[in-house]
């Protein structure tokens, strides 16, 4: 028996049986048992034939694969390596992907339908949030698990200013950014001395505090009821109304799509502004100081860099873009409640930054499209979508443990701009 297990066929069989058992354990809970409404309560419905098919498929498939395709140690990673593109090719493709995506985004409203444009708005919002968080996590190396707090501050700033003072979106947008960056600094002060896990816990708590305050301060924020009828943005004073608005002014027939397209371009402009400022900042002394802070804080101080100010500017700037995105979110939805600003949102934004590659602007875009877009594409799979989604993340992490784009572009060069391999770049201690 032991001899048989040591042969190739035996080992493959053993491996296949193990995989089948794991599949059985997983699928029997997730696929095999379903709840359904019965008279007098919930009932359970079995779906065991599907489970049997899945287990069989894994058993046969795994056996065949390990016998015919996978050889050597760590077969999955090796197989992935050969299927997926190499780092150098990714770098070469990367040069064209950015401009191509920009052209795609600019022209999307001309051929996309309502659903596609709405999706575009959603993805762009997350791209903007990812870029904002990238300043804090990717460049300065400060792990922030409560980024959604600034998104909430931005959204509630606009909603409350509009409700109490009747201010327009364009006045509130900068105000939302300023208030969010102010809160960024308020978070920044207590966490200046914290690093690593401690920093993560405090930022996580901060995000929850903001949400709980919004939830419980009923007289001011409306608590769980949220704030509704938030004014929609106007096109330089022209409302998107049936009469006397944007359409009338330009003499074109009214179409409800105008507002959606306008919102799309608005978030695109905001996201590009975020990108522009971040790219610019990276080449300025402050941006270099952020990255130096991520690499080695003590060395920074020995060179006369005021690490307090450097950290606070990173927090404030990252929070400001979160605030802009929040104000946009409020005006797009027309209704906000604390439900939209749970920890899950922070986790998704952080996942986008980490999967994309810390500090990489293009990586955030790709990860947002994959994560937010992918989530939508697999909507038909219902419950299985989480499974597919998890699988996708595992695949990315096996293929690229440091994110899709892990190399770092230097901020200044003498003769030749060489990308710094991700292996050298520190992830930051905080």
């Amino acid at each position: 028996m032991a001899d048989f297990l040591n042969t190739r066929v035996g080992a493959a069989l053993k491996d296949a049986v193990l995989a089948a058992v794991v599949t059985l354990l997983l699928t029997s809970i997730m696929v095999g048992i379903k709840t359904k409404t019965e008279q007098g309560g919930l009932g359970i419905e079995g779906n065991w034939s599907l489970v049997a098919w899945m287990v069989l498929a894994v058993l046969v498939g795994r056996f065949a694969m390990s016998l015919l395709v996978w050889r050597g140690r760590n077969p999955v990673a090796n197989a992935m390596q050969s299927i997926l593109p190499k780092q150098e090719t990714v770098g070469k493709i990367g040069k064209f992907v950015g401009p191509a995506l920009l052209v795609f985004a600019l022209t999307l409203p001309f051929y996309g339908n309502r659903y596609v444009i709405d999706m575009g708005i959603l993805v762009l919002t997350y791209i903007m949030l990812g870029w904002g968080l990238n300043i804090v996590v990717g460049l300065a190396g400060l792990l922030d698990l409560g980024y959604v707090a600034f998104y909430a501050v931005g959204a509630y700033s606009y909603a409350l200013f509009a409700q109490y003072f009747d201010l327009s979106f364009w006045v509130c947008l900068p105000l939302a950014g300023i208030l969010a960056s102010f809160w960024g600094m308020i978070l920044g002060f207590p966490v200046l001395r914290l690093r690593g896990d401690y920093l993560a816990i405090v930022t996580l708590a901060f995000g929850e505090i903001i949400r709980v305050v919004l939830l419980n301060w009923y007289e001011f924020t409306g608590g769980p009821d949220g704030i509704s009828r938030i004014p929609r943005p106007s096109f330089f004073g022209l409302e998107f109304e049936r009469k006397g608005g944007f359409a009338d002014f330009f003499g074109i027939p009214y179409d409800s799509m105008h507002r959606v397209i306008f919102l799309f371009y608005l978030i695109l402009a905001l996201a590009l502004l975020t990108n522009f400022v971040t790219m610019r900042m990276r080449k300025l002394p402050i941006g270099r100081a952020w990255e130096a802070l991520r690499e080695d804080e003590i060395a920074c101080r020995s060179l006369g860099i005021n690490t307090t100010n450097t950290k606070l500017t990173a927090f404030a700037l990252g929070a400001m873009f979160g605030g802009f995105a929040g104000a946009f979110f409020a005006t797009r939805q027309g209704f906000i409640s604390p439900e939209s600003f749970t920890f899950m949102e922070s986790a998704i934004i952080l996942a986008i930054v980490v999967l994309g590659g810390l500090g990489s602007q293009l990586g955030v875009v790709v990860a947002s499209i994959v994560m937010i877009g992918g989530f939508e594409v697999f909507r038909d799979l219902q419950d299985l979508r989480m499974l597919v989604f998890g699988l996708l993340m595992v695949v990315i992490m096996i293929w690229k443990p440091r994110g899709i784009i892990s190399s770092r572009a230097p901020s200044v060069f003498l003769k030749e701009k060489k990308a710094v391999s991700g292996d050298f770049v520190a992830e930051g201690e905080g």
Partner: protein
Amino acid sequence: MSSWKENPILTVEHLTMRFGGLVAVDDLSFEVGRSDITALIGPNGAGKTTVFNCVTGFYKPTEGRITMNRSNGQSYLLERIPDFQIAHHAKVARTFQNIRLFGGMTVLENLMIAQHNKLMKDSLFSIGGIFGISSFRKSEKASVKKATEWLERIDLIDRADDPAADLPYGDQRRLEIARAMCTNPELLCLDEPAAGLNPRETQDLNGLLRSIRELDKTAVLLIEHDMSMVMEISDHVVVLDYGVKISDGDAAFVQNDPHVIAAYLGVDDDEVDEAEAEAKVANAEGVKS
């Protein structure tokens, strides 16, 4: 004789540093001459790095006063100001025993970060920089030029665009010195600059340190275990043992000081033999009983 006492750049008076019950440095006083290479030596655990950390602000001393007298006449009490201001205003730069470069950044970027404060001011604290004002661009160019000059001096110009972590050990040591020098210091503190270098690299380092003293008019304070190097380049040597200064003078004086020979370079071989013999007897007795 004792030229460092006349116009010292750094005066350390009654410096004491306690960590809980442990006294790492005990009532230490010494001077660093303005145009000297001063070495701080002593056996392992003598408190040399603690003195460095006090001078550069990474520790706040329990007692004592550290005065930096800049060449423009200004004086700074280093025990009272935060570490980053010591580098920025008091013009004291340092390197670390375990090299602390920004490994994921290029060699050139490392030298640019050292010029952070000047660039920050010229970019109008980033606001002018975002709009690309010309004075900032000029300043950036000047900083690159300065970095280039230093890269030529330490012979790393060909590797300017490589990540710092990719350099061999000796190059990393030199880069760290160049980075510290890019902050325009008046006093450069080096924590074991020759550790891990081969003899030829140590010779190059000696040349570099001499040029820093002569060309850049920067005083050098260094901790070192390589005695041949210390004796070759130092104008002034301070010897520590268990946090106490046991000798202070020029290289020749220190070499012949009986305290140093006893405490640092070790006692005579005869005495060691005697001690070992005693230990053997004690052991043997222990076995018997």
